[in-house]
């Protein structure tokens, strides 16, 4: 005696497979950077509730995202490091920034609380080059005349896994110190001459809070949520600024996007009195002539929705939405550079 009616089972299977294929047809597929993953997935949740269209985003890393979009296995790629205009053109890709975040230096020096220490790029570079080895070094004292700095040895901590955080930090140090640029350079992974490598934000945060005299760098959200002792930085305008949503957005707003083809602009060390110097955008990559225009249109719809409705959600996760002027410019880019897409609904 059979408990399951075979006909019914068949019908059930058929509905399941139809549902699965329908979902596959409407889901937006993307792959890449890990840094924006929390905010992309939060947006995706809300978007799915509103529209029924899901997002399948694999946070496999920027390198993987670039490879996957070039192999055309996903509709969009995401990268923390913008592709150079020549590379974009060769691959037929269009690139635009999607979300902003920042990197924050954190310290563990006895008697120094959050925001009490001020550093500048050249000094941090010297620390990570192994040239400044004690906290009471004259160069640090000069920036902090009133702080009581101990004679503790500095223990530099770096991110060991390849990441956009590393890229932003080393890019900033390369811009601040010719010697750093020459001997180390900017990349998602670099060869550090001194210090100890910890895995991920959590590893760096833990090593820094555990080791007396340590200095490290983590994503802003991480420093904020864990109440870590961040250091202020002196920006290109010569002002000491603290990391916050306002200073990140100032860096993005002061940047010269209009004269950067392919939005190839790294937001570190931007001008402006209020700009946080280690700010970075995470980028989206799409095909200029999409192999499957319907998929790309669906992806653009999602990005457009996120620009409109995603600001609040991003702020809750301590990311920073793009300034309005930049969003306008990106919408114009979509219209002019991506072929075969029906016009977006006007806002």
């Amino acid at each position, binding site marked *: 005696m059979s408990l399951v009616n075979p006909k019914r089972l068949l019908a059930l299977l058929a509905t399941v497979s139809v549902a699965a294929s329908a979902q596959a047809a409407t889901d937006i597929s993307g792959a890449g950077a*890990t840094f924006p993953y929390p905010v992309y997935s939060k947006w995706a949740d809300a978007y799915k509730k509103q529209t029924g269209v899901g997002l399948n985003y694999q946070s*496999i*890393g*920027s*390198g*993987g995202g*670039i490879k996957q979009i070039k192999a055309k296995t996903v509709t969009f790629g995401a990268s923390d*490091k913008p592709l150079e205009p020549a590379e974009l053109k060769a691959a037929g890709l269009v690139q635009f920034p999607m979300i902003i975040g920042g990197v924050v230096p954190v310290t563990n020096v006895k008697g120094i609380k959050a925001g009490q220490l001020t550093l500048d790029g050249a000094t941090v570079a010297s620390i990570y080059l192994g040239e400044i080895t004690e906290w009471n070094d004259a160069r640090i004292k000069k920036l902090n005349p009133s702080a009581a700095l101990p004679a503790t*040895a500095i*223990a530099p901590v770096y991110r*060991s*896994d*390849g*990441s*956009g955080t590393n890229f932003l930090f080393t890019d900033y140090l390369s811009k601040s110190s010719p010697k750093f640029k020459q001997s*180390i*350079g*900017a*990349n*998602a*992974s*670099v*060869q*550090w001459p001194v*210090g*100890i*490598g*910890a*895995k991920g934000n959590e*590893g760096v945060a*833990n*090593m820094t809070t*555990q*080791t007396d005299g340590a200095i490290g760098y983590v994503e802003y959200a991480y420093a904020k949520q864990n109440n870590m002792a961040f250091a202020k930085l002196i920006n290109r305008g010569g002002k000491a600024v603290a990391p916050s949503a306002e200073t990140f957005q100032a860096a993005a707003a002061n940047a010269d996007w209009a004269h950067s083809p392919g939005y190839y602009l790294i937001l570190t060390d931007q001008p402006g009195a209020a700009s946080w110097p280690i700010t970075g955008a995470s980028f989206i990559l799409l095909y200029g002539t999409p192999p499957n225009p319907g998929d790309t249109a669906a992806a653009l719809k999602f990005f457009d929705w996120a620009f409109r409705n995603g600001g609040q959600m991003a702020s809750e996760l301590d990311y920073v939405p793009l300034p309005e002027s930049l969003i306008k410019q990106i919408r114009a880019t979509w219209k002019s550079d991506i072929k075969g897409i029906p016009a977006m609904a006007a806002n």
Partner: protein
Amino acid sequence: MNSAVIEADSRHAAGQRLRESIFRGATLVAALLVLTLLGGVALSLLKGAWPAFSHFKLQFLTREIWNPVTDQYGALAAVYGTLVTSLIAMLIAIPISFGIAIFLTELAPPWLKRPVGVAIELLAAVPSIIFGIWGLFVLAPMLQRHVQPWLIDVLGPLPLIGKLFQGPPFGIGVLTASVVLAIMVLPFISAVMRDVFETVPDVLKESGYGLGATTWEVIWKVVLPYTRSGVVGGIMLGLGRALGETMAVTFVIGNAHRISPSLLGPGTTISASIANEFTEAVGDLYTSSLIGLGALLFLITFTVIAAARLLLLRLDRRALSSV
């Protein structure tokens, strides 16, 4: 009627032969599948690593540099870290495992045998990421505060071996990674050792005791020679795990592509480098160099297992000739 029986019998026999040959074929396919997989892995590793090997030639093996900015890669630091952490882990784990196995099979009171045995098996089931997080949050601070300062003060000033224990106590580093590895391979080695020790016939041991041998002598002269190949097998199983362990090591080794003379300093291993850098590796030479590291690990593991087999063969031959 007789002929009908014979016919039925032969039909039955034919069916059996068919089943037999199907079964044989199926097992052959399963065996060949393993070989094909192994060959496939080796080939694809070589293919992926070829750009790096042909670009750097022998320098890939002899240089310590690992610089993604200038695209210069050498595997020396990672190979060194892999071998050193595994070696120290084995130095710690083998004697302890030996002690556990001997205690459980020869000395423990029966009421203690089961709980300790189960505890060891449970330890083997802990995922490596747990060991990594435990190493980072619990073991590393403990070593940093209590053990490493002592090592630096007491062993640091000594000639020769002092070099191994100098520098600031970071907590994480080559030594911490080795300790975590030792704890991870310990259950494997001791479980295998215990199982093979239990296969020793009581008659043999009782004869030893009957001749007036001490427990130590029975273990050394009866149990160990009888179980030699099993013990070496257990050690190799542990070593294989230590060489390839990724997550736990990545958390606690300090991830620096340098060879520091001190065991307290940061280092890296092959698998830790791959886990750290593969996701964000952009550029063909970089990716290829990471795959090249993987190929080297494959080669090292292969060599270790081959060497162990050879050693066993030698031992067996010597044992035969001495009889």
